[in-house]
């Protein structure tokens, strides 16, 4: 025998996860195949494209928009977007007078079925604290400058309910199809740290 005949153990967190996983599988508390299925779903299938479809539908269909604002969970489920962290959805509408922005001040509550998993900054302490104390300043850091006569409302998502912002339909999109509109809607515009920019030469 020669050389290193062992395998270097991985990092501490990796060992802890291996410990948890093997204990839980052994006790038949979880099915190991389900782990990979969940990871794949959230890495590749669920994301802000879902939310963009909700927004685009609301832009073209006033009746859908009314249902969405009245009962977000139900209206979003109409498009097939349901699941963990999507059980109690409240949709808040941006207007000429009001701009909405969403945070989870305590941790990372976020509407997974419509937006996927949150970006790092959403989970970071500076955003969680400062968007409450200085929302306009934080929005500026995202390059979003709001007029002084617009009221900014900050909504705190939590375990019971999560907020989704319905951004304003931009100018220059009259007559656009739902698909074309959906492609304009960014994740950040549904969190409220961005707006959907006006389209076309007119802007």
């Amino acid at each position, binding site marked *: *025998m020669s050389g290193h005949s062992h395998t270097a153990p991985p990092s501490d967190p990796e060992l802890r996860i291996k410990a*948890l996983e093997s204990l839980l599988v052994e006790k038949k508390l979880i099915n190991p195949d389900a782990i990979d299925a969940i990871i794949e779903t959230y890495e590749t299938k669920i994301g802000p494209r879902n939310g963009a479809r909700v927004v685009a539908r609301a832009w073209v269909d006033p009746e859908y928009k009314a249902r969405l604002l009245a009962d977000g969970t139900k209206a979003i489920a109409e498009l097939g977007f349901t699941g963990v962290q999507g059980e109690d959805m409240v949709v808040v509408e941006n207007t000429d007078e009001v701009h909405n922005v969403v945070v989870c001040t305590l941790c990372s509550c976020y509407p997974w079925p419509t937006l996927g998993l949150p970006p790092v900054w959403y989970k970071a302490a500076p955003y969680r604290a400062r968007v409450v104390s200085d929302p306009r300043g934080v929005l500026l850091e995202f390059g979003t400058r709001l007029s002084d006569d617009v009221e900014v409302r900050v909504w705190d998502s939590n375990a019971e309910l999560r907020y989704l912002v319905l951004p304003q339909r931009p100018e220059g999109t009259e007559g656009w199809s739902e698909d074309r509109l959906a492609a304009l809607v960014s994740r950040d515009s549904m969190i409220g740290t961005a707006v959907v920019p006006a389209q076309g030469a007119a802007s």
Partner: protein
Amino acid sequence: MSGTVPVGLGDAPPFREPWQAKAFALAVLLHREGHFTWDAWVRTLAEEIAAFPQRAGEDAELAYHRQFLAALETIVANTGLAKPEAMQARKMAWRQAYLNTPHGHAVDLAAAGEPHVDEARDHDLEPQRAPIAISPARGAG
């Protein structure tokens, strides 16, 4: 709390390392199987985040996943799914399994129990500049 919002990390993939994805999946699965409510999970995570905030030398993402893993271990212990001692013992067993497995081979937990033939030899190769054991003097006569 002040500090800049890490806007630039907006488009990073949700998981930087596989264990982070696994921790996430375990939390979702255990909730889905009814072992704890989402409310209980969020409370546990929020408490961990409040008690052990981002540290110097740690970015926001690493901090979050550290807090997430610790919260997962806490809720697993609090709901009686596994004891903290069992998690610690299992972690050490995995570590030993790695050490016992020849490089290039798949690591199986069963290997934790086997003595590592090369370990003593590896130790011998290290120059020892201090006694490996000392039996204190008992006094003459």
